[in-house]
């Protein structure tokens, strides 16, 4: 367990008083009704109410907040928009949630160096909007990009459909300003193409807010694509569909996205939106390519031919923005559409080597059948990043129990096939118990030692990401 904290009412009241003077009444929430909205992020299976929520407006405010908390032995939990899917922003050990939503500014856009400097609470999509018309954009595109914040993306190492070509958040961060739990402001990375010394930017990306509070982010801007073609290929078997994914990558093509949607979701989409998909198709692939105008149709023709050689029944090709948006509608609405199928849904996030896709999908179906539950699939096939959506009724405790067992087996299967337990949703509190599958005791201990270089007293977002050594028996590296 992390060090015992002083969450006594008197200590909290004293802190609230100090922070109200610093930030103003409106930016310190202490009423139970207000705190309820912060008892979890988008992972709702476990909830914990913080003692306070504060909303600083500057790096200096953040320094003052963490120092005030430190003096009173109260942990801090940074939070962006609360769209995280693994409980990373849940105050599992109590404490003060530091909401960064007021720090949403874009401080500079530097086109010659292809950089933008933004505040932590800047919305992901706001960067691309601010750069509109310049020929550049911010590439990572998590599905929550119209709500999620850049520091939240950094904390989770977020990714999205276009990660296949453009990489995860880690590939797009050039520098960070972070306030350590002792109140020290540290600038990580130079913002240039290379920084000397240890790559503490790389280490901080994906650290789930456990090292300090990020207040500024320098992102890389990516040139806009010159020409885009989007294909939608319809398959009669899942095997043909997954084989196509492997062959497209092996051919040397590098699509910016390859997304797969299975029959269950296709049918729900048809019921909801009448997109014209055949109801008897086993799966579809959404394939997007961006290349210079001179080559884009050649690339699209090659992808089309690979689909057809793997028995695609039909390949649709969008050549206009409107047609493209129409095809993406299926992907973007897909998960939400599952709400028509069940009252509760848990979306898993396992990763496997791409070549194991056929086997992995077969085993997901077998696990679902063995536990008598329904599972559908909509996921980043090009990355081997599975998102099995488990459909259930949370009022049915027996079904809930079977869902939990099935989830555990799906994750274990991903590891067995050479993959891992999370590709983009994070560990948070949701997957801490799965961590020993992929991170051994010595590795976890080393991670904690480095963490303590930033946060020696477990004051920042304790209880996340890496299990404490006590969670390991005599575990060794897998």
């Amino acid at each position, binding site marked *: 367990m992390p060090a015992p904290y002083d969450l006594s009412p008197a200590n909290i009241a004293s802190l609230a008083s100090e922070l109200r003077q610093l930030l103003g009444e409106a930016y310190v929430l202490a009423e139970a009704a207000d705190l309820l909205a912060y008892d979890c992020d988008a992972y709702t299976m476990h909830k914990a109410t913080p003692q306070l929520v504060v909303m600083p407006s500057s790096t200096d405010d953040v320094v003052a907040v963490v120092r005030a908390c430190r003096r009173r032995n109260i942990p801090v939990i940074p939070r962006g928009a609360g769209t995280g899917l693994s409980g990373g922003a849940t105050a599992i050990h109590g404490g003060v949630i530091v909401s960064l939503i007021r720090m949403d500014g874009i401080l500079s856009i530097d086109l010659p*160096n292809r950089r933008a400097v933004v505040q932590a609470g800047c919305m992901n999509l706001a960067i691309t909007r601010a750069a509109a018309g310049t020929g550049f954009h911010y590439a990572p595109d998590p599905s929550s990009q119209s709500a999620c914040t850049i520091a939240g993306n950094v904390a989770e190492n977020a990714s999205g459909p276009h990660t296949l070509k453009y*990489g*995860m958040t*880690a*590939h797009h961060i050039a520098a960070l300003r972070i306030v*350590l739990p002792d109140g020290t*402001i*540290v600038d990580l990375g*130079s*913002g*240039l*193409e*290379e*920084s*000397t*010394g*240890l*790559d503490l930017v*790389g*280490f901080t*990306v*994906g*650290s789930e807010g456990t090292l300090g509070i990020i207040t500024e982010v320098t992102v890389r801007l990516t040139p806009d694509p010159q020409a885009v073609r989007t294909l939608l290929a319809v398959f009669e078997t899942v095997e043909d569909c997954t084989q196509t994914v492997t062959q497209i*990558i*092996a051919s*040397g093509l590098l699509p910016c996205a390859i997304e797969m949607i299975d029959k269950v979701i296709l049918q729900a989409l048809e019921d909801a939106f009448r997109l014209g998909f055949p109801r008897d198709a086993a799966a579809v692939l959404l394939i997007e390519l961006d*290349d*210079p*105008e*001179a*080559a884009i149709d050649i690339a699209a023709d090659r992808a089309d031919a690979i689909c057809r050689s793997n028995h695609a029944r039909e390949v649709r090709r969008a050549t206009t923005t409107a047609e493209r948006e129409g095809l993406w509608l299926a992907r973007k609405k897909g998960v939400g559409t599952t709400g028509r199928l069940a009252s509760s849904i848990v979306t898993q996030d396992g*990763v496997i*080597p*791409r*070549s194991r896709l056929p086997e992995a999908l077969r085993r997901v179906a077998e696990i679902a059948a063995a536990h008598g539950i329904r599972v559908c699939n909509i996921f*980043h096939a090009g*990355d*081997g990043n599975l998102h099995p959506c488990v459909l259930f009724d949370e009022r049915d405790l027996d079904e809930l129990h079977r869902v939990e067992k099935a989830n555990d087996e799906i994750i274990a299967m991903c590891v067995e096939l*050479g*993959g*891992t337990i*999370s*590709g*983009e949703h*994070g*560990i948070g509190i949701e997957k801490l118990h799965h*961590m020993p599958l*992929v*991170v051994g005791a*010595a*590795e976890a201990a*080393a*991670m904690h*030692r*480095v*963490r303590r*270089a930033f946060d020696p007293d477990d004051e920042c977002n304790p209880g996340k*990401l*890496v299990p404490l050594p006590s969670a390991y028996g005599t575990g060794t*590296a897998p």
Partner: protein
Amino acid sequence: MSSVLLDGQAPRSVVAARSPEAVAAAIADARHGRRGLVAVGGGTLVEHGNLLRTDSWDHLDLSPMDAVIDYSPADTVVTAQAGITLAALQELLGSHGQMLPFDAPLPGRATLGGLFASNATGTLQAAFGRPRDRALGLRAVLGTGEAVRFGGQTVKNVAGYDMVRLLAGSRGSLAVVTELTVRACARPEADTWQAYEGRSLPALLEAARLLRNSPERPTATIIDLSGCLYLRLTGMEAAVAWATDLCRKTAAIAGCTEVEPPFSPQELVDRRSESDAPCLARIIAPAGALDAVLAAAHAIGAVGHIDVGTGICELALPDPPALPLLEALSTHAVVVTWPRLPIALKRERDVWGPSRNDAPLQARVKEALDPDGVLSPGRNVGHL
């Protein structure tokens, strides 16, 4: 392998590592004897570092650990021991139409582990990134002597802290990496290399900026200080043919004339490692400071090249007294590092440039993984 000299200092012994267990034993031995341990692959970049903080050190030769552990062409993922040479790995990948986009100096000697430790590549860096961007997982022995495995075999992986990125570029100062899993890519259908001459170096720089930001998007845009602008174009044949034609037109508009390339891309990146100049500088500059770097380099008679895509400038200096002229560039937010310097000049400075406000944190991270300061003591940033 014969032992390397670090700033004229010979090791106490050369330990040939043939297994991770041998690496762990070498670390334990060095800790016990309170000596330093410097892991070396092909030795192509080992001279870049501050003076060792000890008189007694062992040279850990990783070149015997050169096996390929696993290769899955369908996943474009390969796992190999750290001592495999880049050339050997490229030969294997090439037989499946794949490659690692690392055109580092001296590929017949440079090792996978060495590339990861230095995080260096060549003309492909602007387009394809650095070794850290392609490393998925690794096995290593920490400075504590613990054998560990971080990361995995998949591109996406957020399970735990990203220790792979932390170790990338750490120059063997935290751990000795014994095995790496990296993501390869398909060999481009077409790969062309053009060269242009212009009225002057500033004119070439203007042309390079124009081309870098043009729709043709060259893979590499590099100015050789001898007066040549190189462009590398890679990709699908149709795209490269179109871009080549457009680049010629753009270069002509910028007043440049196409010439037969004096050097191939590999020769260009090899030249620095083969240079016998007493001082080598590696400068990292923002786009707006390249004019100042170019002017300073020209003024002191440096040879080398400037990668306009990355802002990285590799220079050889004929005359050590010219150092202050380059170091003065730091006023332009430029970072000046010194891969090679005479010992007397190394004593006066940190070869990695002035420390930043993260220096205390860097020191604590080093201590977390190498508490006795055994691995490459004193050689990294801040004399860690």
